[in-house]
């Protein structure tokens, strides 16, 4: 079972078209909802006249912001969204009204009959404009002007670290934003069910957080709301926030007493966004001649878009995990997220870390060249060690980075290729580290992060109830496999119900690569408990000590005398007779991370970290700058591959997405000449114009798993669905340099940029394309935390006394 290639439990449904995604649901009397979205990037709503829309034949209901005034947001500190804008629109595509009608076409037609009177406000297009224009404030709660949030830390005396360095490298990088583009467009169906309560079927990765937000906004006890996360047709982080349309259809269904569906168009999905934050980063790194890092200083200017979303967390992630790949003895991080009039950024695969990883890995390539050290060798010298406690007090566990590097060097033929291939052809190397589940929940609580419930009965069926969501990553299968392994049965004998807040225990959701580890451990616990009950009953029956019983091949038998056995079904019957109805639970709460006691120290903690190394070989057409990726090798330390087919799929899928980001994917906006228009529109809100890799562009990939079970992972497993994405972009940049000798310090690396850098090179200037300036700004006083090797105890030496925040809205818990 564990460790073997096997058909996943949801496979049949998906290859036969039987799997029901949100938009596949159709119910009697169902009405359709369409949203009217703002054509302006920033405006005050003076008034909305819905009368003509309402009079349109076939229209049932029209809603505006006034109908749903309560704010929500994924993080307790940024409750800044409303289902429909109440008095202000903040980006093109911000929804202002909803029409619910008998047919979708009718609803769409009626949108045009709604008259909104807007007062146009000045538009802020990027962080530099936000810095220059503290007014108008996009949100009143921002830290200052249009700076949403600043974080600043200093671990050790960084200036001293620079003084000890033989060389100091300073580089600026820009990572353009990009988006998830799941194949499935968001869809939801809300129903007032037969008990008069609300059921919402929706394509979400986080039904639990949505559940809480619905309760708040609709002012209904959560116990009267059921959220069913339908199988997601792709998420990648893009379905992790509560979304406007989910509240709107819920409200409409409650009001109309009929099911209401919404199915977003692709363009609307681009407006939901929550994708990768554009980051402008300045790295200063001091190194010794042998490559050892003495200190690093990272400044990060982050474009957040119009709402908070996960942005506060992203701002931390934009620097926090820099210390977990290479040993950095002294580290200063300053990050600032800005509000701008564009769809909000949020968590995309790798959440906040691919951007600084890009900068660091490219800079290391530059360092290696200057110091005349092979980049693989340099990385081996500075790689973090197992069980290291980093400068910022992140506790690492198993670390397979060294093996990853050694193996990727071996299988890619690195030594015969690096700086040795003909002009136009090159190889590049990069590494990364990622976490396996965030150590902290999004809202503070002492309850488990994952729960599993098992029901076993005399039919022989094991039913697994989970709060997790199947977004394609295979979470239903992995949970079934773990239970099957413990109980010695086949996954086919298990039925999985997941993603339903009525049926399954709470699980925080499918994000931060947490499900396999957290829900997996919970599943193992629940299965072990069931096993213990069965063992006790069977031991009595067979008159053997229960310690000697084995569970395998759908039977329970005496290890010493295997002919003494009962079938698995008989074992359940015995247990049921002995204990009554059999149901067990398991739960998982991450271990405490006592090391980081400073404020913000919880971000980046995780039960386990994974490591990846990638080599890319590229072919660059020097005349046009067009790049073709010829081949890619990846080694990934995932603890243990529970199902190698699925693990390979996660790794290859991550690499695919990384290649898209490296070469073409970008979420970019267009301004028009200001004397003619104030528009700020998405440049390419379609699948044709938002470029992603096709089957013809995908190179051959060689992947190798570096296995070394991690005690904290279920059966030793760590994540593999995000980490392998991170090294791809920098590896491509480093390969382009090897091929044609130009540095592209910006993502995506398009042929235009390469041609420009080649022209610079030809003209004898710095052979580079990338940002040429970095804004001046005040970053605030950093929190000073001495690292472990400077005698630090995990506390900041200058932390202001923590005060209970009066401003933070106290959470209301509604009781049924």
């Amino acid at each position, binding site marked *: 079972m564990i460790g073997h290639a096997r058909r996943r439990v949801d496979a049949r449904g998906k290859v036969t078209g039987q799997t029901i995604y949100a938009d596949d649901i159709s119910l009697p009397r169902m009405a359709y909802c369409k949203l009217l979205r703002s054509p302006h990037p920033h405006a005050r709503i003076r008034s909305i006249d819905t009368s003509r829309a309402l009079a349109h034949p076939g229209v049932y209901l029209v809603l505006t912001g006034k109908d749903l005034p309560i704010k929500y947001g994924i993080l307790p500190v940024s409750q800044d969204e409303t289902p429909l804008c109440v008095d202000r629109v903040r980006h093109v595509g911000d929804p202002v009204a909803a029409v619910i009608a008998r047919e979708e076409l009718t609803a769409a037609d009626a949108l045009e009959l709604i008259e909104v009177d807007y007062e146009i406000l000045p538009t802020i297009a990027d962080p530099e404009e936000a810095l220059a224009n503290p007014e108008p404030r996009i949100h009143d709660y921002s830290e200052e002007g249009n700076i949403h949030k600043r974080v600043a830390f200093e671990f050790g005396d960084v200036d001293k670290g620079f003084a000890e360095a033989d060389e100091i490298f300073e580089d600026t990088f820009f990572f353009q934003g990009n988006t998830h583009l799941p194949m499935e467009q968001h869809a939801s169906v809300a129903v007032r069910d037969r008990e008069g309560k609300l059921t919402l079927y929706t394509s979400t990765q986080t039904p639990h957080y949505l559940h809480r937000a619905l309760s708040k906004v609709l002012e209904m006890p959560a116990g009267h709301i059921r959220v069913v996360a339908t199988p997601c047709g792709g998420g990648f982080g893009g379905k992790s926030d509560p979304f406007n349309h989910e509240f709107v259809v819920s409200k409409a269904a409650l009001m109309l007493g009929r099911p209401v569906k919404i199915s977003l*168009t692709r363009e609307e999905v681009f407006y939901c966004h929550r994708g990768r934050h554009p980051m402008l980063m300045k790295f200063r790194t001091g190194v010794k001649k042998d490559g050892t890092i003495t200190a690093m200083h990272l400044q990060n200017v982050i474009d957040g878009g119009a709402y908070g979303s996960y942005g506060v967390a992203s701002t931390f992630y934009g620097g926090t995990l820099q210390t977990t790949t290479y040993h950095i003895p002294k580290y200063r991080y300053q990050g600032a997220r800005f509000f701008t009039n564009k769809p909000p950024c949020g968590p995309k695969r790798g959440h906040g870390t691919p951007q600084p990883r890009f900068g660091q890995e490219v800079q290391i390539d530059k360092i290696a060249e200057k110091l005349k050290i092979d980049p693989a060798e340099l990385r081996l010298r500075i790689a973090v060690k197992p069980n290291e406690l980093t400068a910022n007090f992140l506790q690492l566990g198993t670390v397979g980075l060294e093996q990853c590097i050694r193996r990727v060097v071996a299988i890619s033929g690195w030594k015969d290729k690096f700086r040795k291939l003909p002009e136009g052809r090159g190889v590049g190397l990069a590494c990364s580290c990622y976490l396996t589940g965030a150590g902290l929940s999004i809202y503070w609580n002492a309850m488990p992060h994952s729960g599993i419930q098992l029901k076993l009965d005399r039919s022989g069926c094991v039913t697994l109830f989970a709060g997790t969501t199947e977004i394609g990553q295979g979470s239903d299968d992995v949970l079934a496999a773990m239970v099957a392994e413990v109980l010695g049965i086949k996954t086919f004998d298990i039925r999985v119900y997941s993603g339903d807040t009525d049926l399954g225990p709470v699980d925080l959701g499918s994000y931060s690569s947490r499900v396999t580890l957290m829900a997996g451990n919970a599943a193992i616990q629940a299965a072990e408990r069931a096993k213990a009950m069965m063992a006790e009953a069977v031991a009595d029956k067979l008159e053997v000590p229960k310690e000697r019983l084995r569970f395998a091949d759908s039977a329970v038998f005496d290890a010493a005398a295997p002919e003494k056995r009962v079938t698995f079904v008989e074992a359940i019957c015995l247990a049921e007779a002995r204990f009554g109805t059999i149901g067990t639970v398991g739960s998982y709460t991450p271990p405490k991370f006592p090391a980081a006691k400073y404020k913000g120290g919880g971000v980046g903690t995780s039960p386990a970290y994974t490591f990846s190394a990638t080599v890319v070989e590229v072919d660059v057409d020097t005349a046009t700058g067009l790049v073709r990726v010829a081949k890619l090798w990846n080694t990934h330390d995932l603890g243990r591959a529970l199902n190698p087919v699925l693990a390979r799929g996660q790794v290859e899928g991550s690499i695919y997405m990384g290649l898209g980001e490296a070469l*073409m994917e970008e979420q970019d906006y267009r301004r028009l000449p200001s004397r003619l228009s104030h528009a700020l529109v998405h440049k390419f809100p379609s699948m044709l114009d938002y470029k992603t890799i096709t089957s013809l562009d995908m190179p051959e990939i060689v992947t190798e798993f570096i296995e070394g079970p991690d005690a904290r992972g279920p059966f030793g497993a760590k994540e593999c669905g995000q980490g392998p994405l991170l090294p791809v972009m920098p590896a491509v940049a480093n390969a382009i340099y090897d091929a044609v000798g130009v540095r592209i310090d910006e993502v995506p690396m398009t042929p235009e940029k390469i041609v420009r850098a080649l022209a610079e090179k030809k003209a004898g200037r710095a052979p580079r394309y990338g940002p040429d300036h970095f804004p001046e700004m005040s970053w605030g006083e950093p929190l000073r935390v001495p690292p472990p090797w400077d005698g630090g105890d995990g506390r900041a030496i200058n932390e202001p006394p923590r005060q209970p925040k009066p401003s933070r809205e106290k959470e209301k818990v509604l009781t049924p």
Partner: protein
Amino acid sequence: MMRLPLFDYRTPRTVAEAAQILDGEGPEAMVIAGGTDLLPNMKRRQQTPRTLVSLRRIEGLSGAHLDHSASQLGSCLTLAEIAEDPRFRNGCSALWQAASMVATPHIRNMATLGGNICLDTRCMFYDQSYEWRQAINFCKKKDGETCWVANSSPRCMAVSSTDTGPALMALGARVILHSARGEREVTLADLYNNDGREYLTRRPDEIVSDIRLGPLHGWRSTYWKLRRRGSFDFPVLSVAAAARFSHDGVVEEARIVVGSAASRPLVAEEAARSLLNRRLEPEVIEEATTLAARLAKPLDNTDFDMSWRKKVTSQFVTYALRELRGDDMRAERTRVMHSQADGVS
């Protein structure tokens, strides 16, 4: 889900009947063939014909007669039929390559040759949903006043994005236009007009029934297409070149057409003339390249940066002429076009 607006649907059985309907319905009626251009446009409310006159049930529009001296291609021939037919691969490779590189295999199964040459012009400010266009207060191509690409331009600058258009022009194609008033034949070059709005000289009541090619004997042709990915993408620059060579490699006749660089495919006449009575030596190619690239003035309204596209124009002319000369350009083709459609004939 994006949905179509309401329309009437007519399915004539003959070209004459179709022409009759178009005549009766006036300019609010539009011809639909494969629908792969028109239907997305209708869903985005760029085009909202009241009546669709389908050519799909008309027999006799889908055959192809290829001959060394004269060929006739029905306008409803699908691009897949062209791509799969070895006669095209061997007889007029520019057309074969162009058809093979349009969009995706599925679209090529549906898309017709007639629809491809009549394809609406494209622009990043126009190929957007109604709501998006509303956010920029529309544009000169439809419903608006300003051309956002060139603010002071008196005309719409949307880009001719047909793949087969330039290829067929390089092959000297002519088209037959049918209407209730009769039939006329024009060169394909004359069908196009350098105006993003009025990009065809075809009258709204005319149907393209056939495409005719002159003698192909002794001709070699090739097509180069710039796009970001190996499939899906429209050309954002293309070069079609064809030449007839004497047995010892001297150019006797030549045509070079630059596509997707203006509102119509551009005929590089001077460049083509410079090749006459010469062998395609490097300096000959260079001279023609300079002349052809001069024509292309790409604007910032397609994928990729415009100055870069201009640069690529010369590169592509060079590649195309080298390929005509007989150089093996397969490596370049895969590198720049991710394409498997190689070989020249």
